[in-house]
């Protein structure tokens, strides 16, 4: 009788057991060892694929050595980083040093989770003004970005030579060249007009170079840029699939010979080198008219220092981040990951080692930040831009109508 009860009680306890365990696990962890000297720095980034992963591992280890701490590095997939950062900021487990994609810096800075770097005495050195615009929030510096990338026009030298076409330098030439190069299953041009921020990023060099501005996109300048894309599509010079292609897909199409030219960035150099029999070269994005300036957005990531409330660690983190923008770190990162230094003075040494980076490096002083004017409001407007692009390309709307609707929405 009482045995029955005991075993029942035991069963109930057993049923409760896992719950207690779960809650016990929830309670532990979190607090770091704060006894005296700092022995390691916790670094989080999204360079989770080679070659970027291993190149940055060396760069980060080099700076950890210089600062005199061990490196505890955590890499997460690119798409998960912001979710991870938000989770870490609500549980107060932010790392000592964090990498952020440059258009996200202001958004996270606005949340209050980051330490202003000027307070820590960090020096941006020769980093170009345009790049710094994305690292600043309300007049204070929050990130240091050692290397950057941007867009350019890749062209298949064999196909162009065969067709007797010169690489285009203006919009008119681009349209003509793309039409001349389209033949059979091959399109003249490939680009990404996808309905993500990638599509917006690819449209910006055309929109900005024509005098358009992200604050108000319902302008004739932006409409002309969009008309150019629409003309290219309507003429059959590029596939309608551009509205679903990511930049990775665009590179695949180019590598497979399905497109004679593409708009893309230097991060593809590694994969393109590996393609047998592919001969290509890179020129700047064509300008609206001959001799006009091309204004492109810049990509790449900045390094920030979250507020961890631990002064000793923050001081070391500051030294560490300063080291990441030093000449040795920048050169190693730029050469290894096919990016260009944000400090134009460091560019020649890099271009000497990777000549294909030349057309990207020369754009650095003119690069423009996506978040320079809108700051944390950029994601909303970036969505409006790619929606307008899609509405005009395949949604049957006239460019100016699509842009007006996106601006009002």
């Amino acid at each position: 009788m009482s045995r029955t009860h005991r075993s029942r009680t035991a069963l109930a306890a057993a049923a409760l057991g896992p719950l207690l365990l779960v809650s016990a696990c929830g309670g532990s962890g979190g607090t770091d060892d704060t006894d005296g000297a700092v022995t390691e720095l916790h670094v989080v980034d999204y360079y989770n694929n080679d070659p970027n992963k291993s190149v940055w591992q060396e760069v980060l280890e080099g700076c950890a050595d210089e600062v005199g701490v061990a490196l505890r590095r955590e890499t997460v997939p690119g798409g998960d980083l912001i979710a991870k950062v938000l989770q870490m900021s609500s549980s107060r487990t932010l790392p000592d040093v964090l990498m952020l994609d440059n258009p996200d810096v202001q958004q996270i800075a606005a949340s209050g989770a980051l330490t202003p770097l000027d307070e820590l005495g960090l020096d941006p050195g020769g980093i170009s003004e345009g790049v710094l615009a994305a690292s600043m929030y309300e007049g204070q510096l929050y990130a240091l970005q050692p290397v950057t990338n941007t867009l350019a026009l890749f062209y298949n030298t064999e196909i162009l030579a065969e067709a007797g076409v010169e690489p285009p330098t203006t919009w008119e030439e681009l349209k003509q060249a793309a039409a001349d190069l389209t033949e059979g299953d091959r399109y003249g041009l490939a680009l990404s007009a996808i309905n993500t921020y990638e599509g917006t990023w690819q449209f910006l060099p055309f929109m900005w170079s024509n005098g358009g501005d992200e604050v108000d996109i319902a302008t004739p300048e932006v409409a002309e840029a969009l008309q150019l894309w629409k003309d290219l599509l309507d003429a059959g010079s590029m596939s309608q699939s551009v509205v679903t292609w990511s930049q990775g897909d665009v590179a695949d199409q180019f590598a497979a010979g399905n497109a004679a030219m593409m708009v893309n960035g230097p991060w593809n150099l590694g994969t393109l080198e590996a393609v047998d029999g592919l001969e290509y070269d890179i020129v700047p994005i064509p300008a609206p008219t001959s001799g006009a300036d091309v204004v492109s957005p810049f990509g790449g990531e900045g390094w920030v220092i979250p507020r961890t409330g631990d002064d000793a660690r923050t001081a070391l983190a500051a030294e560490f981040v300063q080291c990441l923008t030093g000449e040795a770190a920048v050169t190693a990162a730029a050469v290894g990951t096919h990016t260009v230094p944000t400090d134009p003075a460091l560019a020649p040494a890099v271009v000497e080692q990777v000549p294909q980076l030349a057309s990207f490096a020369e754009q650095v002083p003119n690069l423009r930040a996506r978040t320079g004017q809108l700051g944390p409001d950029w994601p909303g407007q970036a969505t409006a831009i790619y929606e307008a692009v899609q509405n005009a390309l395949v949604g049957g709307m006239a460019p100016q109508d699509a842009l007006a609707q996106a601006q009002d929405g």
Partner: protein
Amino acid sequence: MVDGATALPGRSVLGGRVPSRAGRPPGRHALRRRAVHLAFLVPALLYLLLFFGYPVVKNVVMAFQEYTTATFYTGEAPWVGWANYAAVIDDPVFSRALMNTGLFTVGSIAGQFTLGLAIALFFHKRFPLSGVLRSLLLLPWLIPMIAASAVWRWILDTDNGVLNRALGLLPFVDGRPAWLTSTSLALLAVVIVNIWLGIPFNATILYGGLQEIPDELYEAGALDGATGARAFWSITMPMLRGVVTVVLVLGVVYTLKVLDVILGLTNGGPANATQTVATLSYHLSFREFDFGMGAALGNILILISLVFAVAYLRLNRRAVDE
């Protein structure tokens, strides 16, 4: 529910030695037994509160707040009342998304159910290898959606996709349909893929329902001259009614919230042609970081699902009563 104690899951473990309680005065024993009962209830209750109650309440509250990236660090989310709801409903994309959700759900369910039923009927007639074929049918269920959608994107690609290449071989087909890149076809393409994905669920459950129908009914029907189509409409369908209701209602609830299929194939595009309430909510929360507005849309979706869930519960109860 005190008598329910005899039905405790522990009973069989105890070898059925649960003693009779007749004539025993309530005392320490009864209290203790009640405590034990409660201890068995607590885990389930805690589980429900923690993993169902909390998220729902949190989502409802979040929709009334300006919940942004800053909230995660500061913990502050200013109360904005119905502003989030007003903003999402006012968004021109919302009506589009609502219509797409309706078309997507109706199209998917109609296709899944019809094909699922046809396949279930087909396999109900046993034939060599029918067991093997029936298990192959479950394949769409076993493939991770992210992989399946990548493969479907290749198949449906306008220029180099298998489907268009195959269509190109046909003499009477002109041009290449832009399955995923034209605003008129994208929703259809997404529905087709979702039908493919939903067939196993429908076929399996309906097949189970068919097994339950006694053969005698068909034999008796056959004697009265009811065979073929007549047997289907007069015996199979009425007997299957309960299962059909379950399949349809669950199907609707699952389809309303489909996210991965659409994100993987078109990400809601082109030009919002496949944007549904679910994908729009995802975009607002995890791409624009406006969690308040995302939650508001999510709640609207929950409300729509709730209508069907309540309908399901009512129909289910009636079926049990019958």
